[in-house]
């Protein structure tokens, strides 16, 4: 295909969200170009864990969206679907070490039941009864969930981009745009492009492009171990502290333990994460914090003490002020669609968001489920709290 300067759709950002939108839009026959300031999965999508998790979501809308995305991704992983070999179903283990954490597990149980989600509780009991042997003595209760999955952000990004019949350009950044009656003029670092519609899926980069959409850069540090001895059974699924759930509730986690996730990778390595820090730089990792995370991880699974750490890295989540993603056409600019603010949930939500945005772009109709995510919700406010 000869690249041209005029497209139905230009997508700024080749993270998992932009890639999913690109693939879904080409499935609907749109002529699509994807540009990225650096390259595919250059930001959060290449520096994250890949939990496709419903349990970790806030009850209500977010849990429903996550569940819908999970079910849809599961479908795409079957019958030679696009996520085959990339989306891996697996059990999830969530544990409590304290009364507040145990209460969080009770709330989770209620949420899964009340919202009739596809994720179910397989087992709930004392640490000794769980499928994971050798848990730390502080762990008092473990819930094993069935139905969740793992998907590495960069693998999904590459799969979508490879299959999407579209033009790809990088390094090329979106610098400005000008909506007009015929479409949108897009000004990039490598010249001008024209399109009927523009999607801004630039993660934290959206901050500079859309100053009226308030966001917070929230970084997280992750730790990667070596493969461990061949004799050691790898975890069947991630071991997540219920403190993570508390992080998402209004009260915060109070004096509960440091939230930690120990996530097994296919290679036999484990990924240990992650923090939430509002400094927002992806370059910053620090020894004291990593040590605290490791201390917490070894408390949960003492055999980790013998693993070696190969590297530590950080990623930046783009968070919105109200904790909901920011998805939809801009208030005064119907041809410009924004999709960002996924914070720690973008891998999980990417399947659904890609499908829904592509449907909106192709048909002009948008799903009522996403109405609450509209970027317009910020412009109605008088002043944006800092």
């Amino acid at each position, binding site marked *: 295909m000869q690249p041209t300067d005029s497209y139905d759709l230009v997508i700024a950002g080749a993270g998992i969200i932009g890639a999913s939108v690109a693939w879904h839009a080409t499935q609907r026959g749109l002529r699509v170009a994807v540009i990225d300031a650096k390259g595919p999965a250059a930001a959060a999508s290449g520096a994250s864990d890949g939990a496709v998790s419903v349990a970790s979501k806030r009850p209500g809308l977010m849990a429903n969206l996550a569940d819908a995305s999970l079910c849809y991704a599961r479908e795409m992983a079957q019958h030679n679907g696009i996520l085959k070999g990339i989306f891996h179903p697996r059990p999830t283990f969530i544990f409590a070490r304290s009364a507040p954490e145990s209460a969080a597990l009770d709330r989770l149980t209620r949420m899964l039941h009340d919202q009739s989600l596809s994720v179910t509780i397989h087992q709930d009991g004392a640490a000794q009864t769980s499928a994971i042997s050798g848990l730390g003595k502080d762990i008092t209760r473990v819930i094993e969930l069935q139905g969740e999955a793992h998907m590495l952000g*960069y693998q999904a990004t590459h799969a979508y981009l490879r299959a999407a019949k579209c033009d*790809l350009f990088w390094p090329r950044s979106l610098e400005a745009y000008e909506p007009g009656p015929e479409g949108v003029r897009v000004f990039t670092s490598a010249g001008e492009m024209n399109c009927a519609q523009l999607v801004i899926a630039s993660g934290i980069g959206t901050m500079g492009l859309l100053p009226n959409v308030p966001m917070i850069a929230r970084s997280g540090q992750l730790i990667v171990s070596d493969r461990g001895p061949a004799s050691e059974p790898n975890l069947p699924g991630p071991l997540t502290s219920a403190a993570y759930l508390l992080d998402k509730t209004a009260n915060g986690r109070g004096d509960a333990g*440091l939230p930690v996730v120990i996530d097994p990778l296919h290679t036999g390595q484990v990924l240990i994460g992650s923090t939430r820090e509002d400094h927002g730089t992806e370059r910053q990792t620090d020894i*004291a914090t990593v040590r605290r995370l490791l201390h917490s991880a*070894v408390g949960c699974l003492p055999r980790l003490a013998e693993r070696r*750490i190969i590297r530590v890295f950080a990623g930046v989540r783009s968070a919105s002020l109200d904790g909901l993603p920011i998805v939809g056409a801009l208030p005064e600019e119907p041809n410009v669609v924004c999709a960002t603010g996924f914070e720690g949930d973008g891998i999980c939500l990417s399947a659904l968001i890609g499908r829904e945005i592509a449907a909106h772009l192709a048909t002009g109709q948008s799903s009522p489920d996403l109405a609450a995510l509209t970027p317009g919700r910020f412009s109605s406010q008088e002043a944006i709290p800092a």
Partner: protein
Amino acid sequence: MIDTRPLIVGAGPAGLRAAITLSDAGLHPVLVDHAPGIGGAVYANLRAQPNLTPKLTREACILRQDFERVRPRVDLRLSTAFAAFDQAGTALLTGQAGMMFKPRAVIFATGARERIQPRPGWTLAGVSSAGALQIALKTTGTLPLGRLLLAGTGPLLYAIAAQMVAAGRAPVAVIETGNPLRHPLMALRLPAPVLTEAARYMGRLLLAGVPILSGTDLTRIETRNGALIAHTSRQGRWAEIAVDHIGLHDGLARNDFGISAEMTGQTPVFQAGDCRSVLGRWAAEDDGKRAAEQVLHALKATPGRAAIAPDQRFVKTQTLLAKLFARAPSLAAPDLPDDTVICRCENRSLGDLKQALQAASEQTQTTARTLRLTERFGMGPCQGRQCLDWVAALTADTTSFADLRGNRWPIKPVRVRDILDAPDFTVDPSHQDLK
């Protein structure tokens, strides 16, 4: 008390001399080395087993004497690795005498690392780096059993071969890619100590009748009937040599892997010795002293020197050596068969790399991140020490070594237990709390 003593990483000639200089100025440096003794790569015999009585050179003796003099003022931590330094100014040491502290200044004197050119068969059992053989010889007095072969390029190859001869284990041959003996006139421009040393090594090899096959490439290694078969090529003529052990060495590079300017935050950080510029052991001591003076200047302890340039004599020597050993055209990775393993940790081949590069188009470059995340180069436990030189060379127009390496720590894999066990002196001990 919060510990802020200056840190020196590496107890080779550069690090030892830096420690001596700082101590003489009244400071109490922390000197750390992951080896069990002082001396670094060149004076590894300073840490030889007690039953060996190695002959030490005059320089080694002087260095040891000077260090013994300041020893009470130096906090020497052996069998302890420097693992990380973060933007908060915290250094993490792990191993026998691990700790966390906030050094006021850091000198990296981590020496050189060997470069090993991937070739088919280089990952077979029985093939190692020539330097690894040398360290074993210097510290334990032993070498693996059977016939030994050395191959690659650079002056160190002859030093190692001569040391093997002295130990009564002459190698079957030295296979040299370059042609250093071709240019005797050029060689005569080398400084006297270098020439003397070279002559001594060569004399020893000649006397022992060790063939030096120069202008010859070791193109491939395979196993046959329990032996290693080295396939060599010299101007299109092929030969085979059957041996039991092969030591490869393709020159030295700075061992600054994982040590970037970016990691330093506010703390003054300097590099010294081969870690700053591979100029050999004479330059290393000199450079260690100067790095220490820079630290003193930065800490305003004395009016030390601010900016330094490497001593031009040493630079000239190395440039000349590089010319002597140059081979045209050099055996480059693109000439190798596609199934040559480039990254042994993740088992990625040259063909994998080429394919990844071909997947890019005029509009899209293959980024460093894709080469790491998707292609897995540099992601194994060696962190790319072996493969990234070659990956960077093949992808020079789109990525850089720095992009491929990134700025991640630890600089070598460390056990979780060692990280947790290191006492924390970055905070007042009365406030220590891991939770």
